[in-house]
């Protein structure tokens, strides 16, 4: 495969692996716990790299992933002392762990292949040089690991689909049917930790937040249905990663940074264009309901006192052009009948008013 292909594949697989647990983070309003985990696994990663000498091995994934769970546990313990609120607990725990990690990087890691730039935005371009032999084939390692993690997340979600769904949308019902919210919570957090660690080499500790949250949030703007949202999040994440690579190649900037920006662009597009939640849709709906309301208002008035357009304009004190537009519409749609004394609502017109009022 070409080196471009390997980098794009790595990015897309990272995006897919992140979007799956990310969807639940967004729905459960725990995005910032994801942010915290992605920062706090750093000391775990550095420690594991110092011990094993490798960045993307299974012991690193599991060991550093455990630090992610430790972070969640620390945040909860701190909150349970009831001496700090949850948001402050998050903002105290993860900077401390991240600071520790950065100092470890600065102090020890110059000899290993991990440095401050890697922490910030990964080294996805490196993925094409880092290969392992599988039988007779030379395979790039990063996409392999990320693909495995994406598959693992997919299986996890399929297996626990019902549990995750109930615990996310109806915690009370989940408790009633004997589902432990703690177990569901920690399964999800375990998945986030593992995924963050696996993505670390490619996208770094901070930009992985973009991979976790942005595609899921964008998907949430388009749909209410969980399976659709999961699929859309993976799709948007993949598109953002591929588009980001294209942008990076074009302007020659950080690949992971461009991928994050692209995901932001896709989010912005969704914010603008999504039919129900988007700005445009909202604007159009507002316009339409205004028009419908104005139409109904005119019909109501005609019901009580038949009139022509000129009289309407004076009694309503509306601009003549606006009244003409409304009257034109009403006549075209046969919502009014024209009588000698002026216009009156037709039976269809009366039905129209009832419809608008009942909306």
């Amino acid at each position, binding site marked *: 495969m070409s080196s471009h292909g390997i980098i794009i594949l790595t990015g897309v697989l990272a995006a897919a692996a992140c979007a799956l647990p990310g969807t639940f983070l*967004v729905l459960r309003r725990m*995005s910032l716990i994801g942010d915290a985990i992605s920062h706090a696994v750093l000391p775990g990663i550095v420690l594991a790299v110092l011990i094993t000498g490798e960045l993307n091995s299974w012991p690193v994934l599991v060991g550093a992933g455990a630090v992610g769970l430790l972070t969640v546990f620390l945040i909860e313990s701190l909150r349970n002392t009831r001496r700090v609120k949850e948001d*402050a607990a998050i*903002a105290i725990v993860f900077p401390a762990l991240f600071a520790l990690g950065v*100092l470890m990087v*600065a102090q020890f890691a110059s000899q290993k292949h991990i440095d401050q730039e890697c922490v910030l935005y990964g080294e996805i371009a490196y993925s094409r040089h880092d290969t392992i032999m599988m039988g007779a084939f030379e395979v790039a390692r990063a996409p392999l690991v990320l693909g495995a993690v994406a598959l693992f997340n997919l299986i996890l979600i399929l297996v626990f689909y019902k549990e995750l769904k109930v615990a996310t949308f109806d915690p009370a019902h989940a408790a009633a049917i004997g589902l432990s919210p703690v177990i569901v919570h920690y399964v999800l957090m375990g998945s986030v930790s593992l995924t963050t660690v696996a993505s670390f080499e490619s996208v770094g500790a901070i930009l992985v*937040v973009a991979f976790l949250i942005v595609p*899921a949030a964008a998907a949430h703007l388009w749909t209410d249905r969980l399976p659709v949202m999961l699929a859309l999040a993976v799709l948007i994440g993949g598109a953002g990663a591929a588009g980001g690579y294209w942008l990076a190649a074009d302007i020659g900037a950080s690949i992971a940074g461009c991928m*994050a920006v692209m995901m932001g662009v896709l989010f912005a597009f969704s914010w603008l264009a999504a039919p129900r*939640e988007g700005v445009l849709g909202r604007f159009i709906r507002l316009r339409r309901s205004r028009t419908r309301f104005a139409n109904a208002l005119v019909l109501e008035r005609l019901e009580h006192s038949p009139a022509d357009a000129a009289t309407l304009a004076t009694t309503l004190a509306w601009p003549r052009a606006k009244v003409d537009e409304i009257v034109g519409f009403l006549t075209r749609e046969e919502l009014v009948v024209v009588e000698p004394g002026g216009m009156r609502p037709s039976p269809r017109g009366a039905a129209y008013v009832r419809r608008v009022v009942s909306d």
Partner: protein
Amino acid sequence: MIDFFDPTLRNVALGSGVLGVIAGALGCFAVLRRQSLLGDALAHAALPGVCLAFLFGTHMGLDPKQPLLLLGGALVTAWIGTMLVLAMTRTTRIKEDAALGIVLSVFFGAGIVLLTLLQKGGATNQAGLDRFLFGQAASLLPRDIATMAILGGAVLLTLFFYFKDFQVLVFDSAYARSLGLPVRRLEILLTSLIVVAVVVGLQTVGVVLMAALIVAPAAAARQWTDRLGVMVLLASGFGALSGVAGATISATKRRLPTGPTIVLAVSALVLISLLFAPRRGIVWAAFRRVRTRRRVRLENLLKDLWRLGELDSRFDALRAITDLMAVRSALPATMRHARNAGLVAVEGTGIRLTKAGLVRAAAIVRNHRIWELYLSRRLDLADDHLHRDAEEMEHALDSEVMEAIDRALGRPTTDPHGRPIPRGVPA
């Protein structure tokens, strides 16, 4: 050796001290309004602003490292980020946590893109921009500190003038509205002040960890006091202390970025405060629990001795310790404490109440029985519900409350079960 007359070190200490004061003071409001993570998002959102300002400066032929220019750029994008978070949560179903995460990561990504572009462009003096990531106090120049001090001074002055309004806003925004305060405008003003505080710290602590310097001093100060004014002063002090300590350590050693060092210093302060702050400290709370448990056990021992006395009207008789164990487990440690307090005397395998012990035991039994009577008469509780509650209340009621209840009940002589309420010590 730390030499505070070394001009670099003096700059570092001064700069990070100023920063600590500002961040600590404003952080109190962020923490109390549960906006701790807004600071994090703001700091990340400032990065593209710094890079854009640098680009702008280069193109306009200005000095691109002019601190006011860079901070101005940071202010602009941090502000845009805040407004986007607000707009997103207002107009869509996106919740605040996701909105913060989106702004944080996408703006930071844009910052990284700009940074790598600048690096590639090879602008000769762009190397300095790296310091905005993890902070580099050693790079502080006198003009940087002057800018920080002026911006910070303006922030603190505003805080001082609006202190009362912010106080009402933080604790009871509904009340603030009823007073006719311009709540929306005050909220925006407060958030803007926090934005400035975050931006002032970027060069020293870096965008990645600046949130900690906003949140941690405030969270630490909160443990020591319940008063906002005191909290703000304390948080400023903590911020300055950890700023100076962290920056000094970082400046004297190689390969120690300032941001992480300061963050670890301030995190240590949080830990110390959580554990040892008077009243709220976790250690003292544990001590208090142990002490209360010890007192309850001791009082129960005295009460048991008194009850045995009631059986044969010999209140200060020597009782076999084994008998006592049949009533309730008389723990060796509890007996030792009671003896040390002069409340009981131990003779061989027997134990009896001393004069002081009799007084104390009578008081506890009186508390118990009066409380039972009160529950029965005033609250109409069934007889079998009385004992368990009284078992706890007898240790908690103070003498003033007891006296009031006693008087209200008309100084009764027997409890609901017909047992005498002790009045003083038997001869």
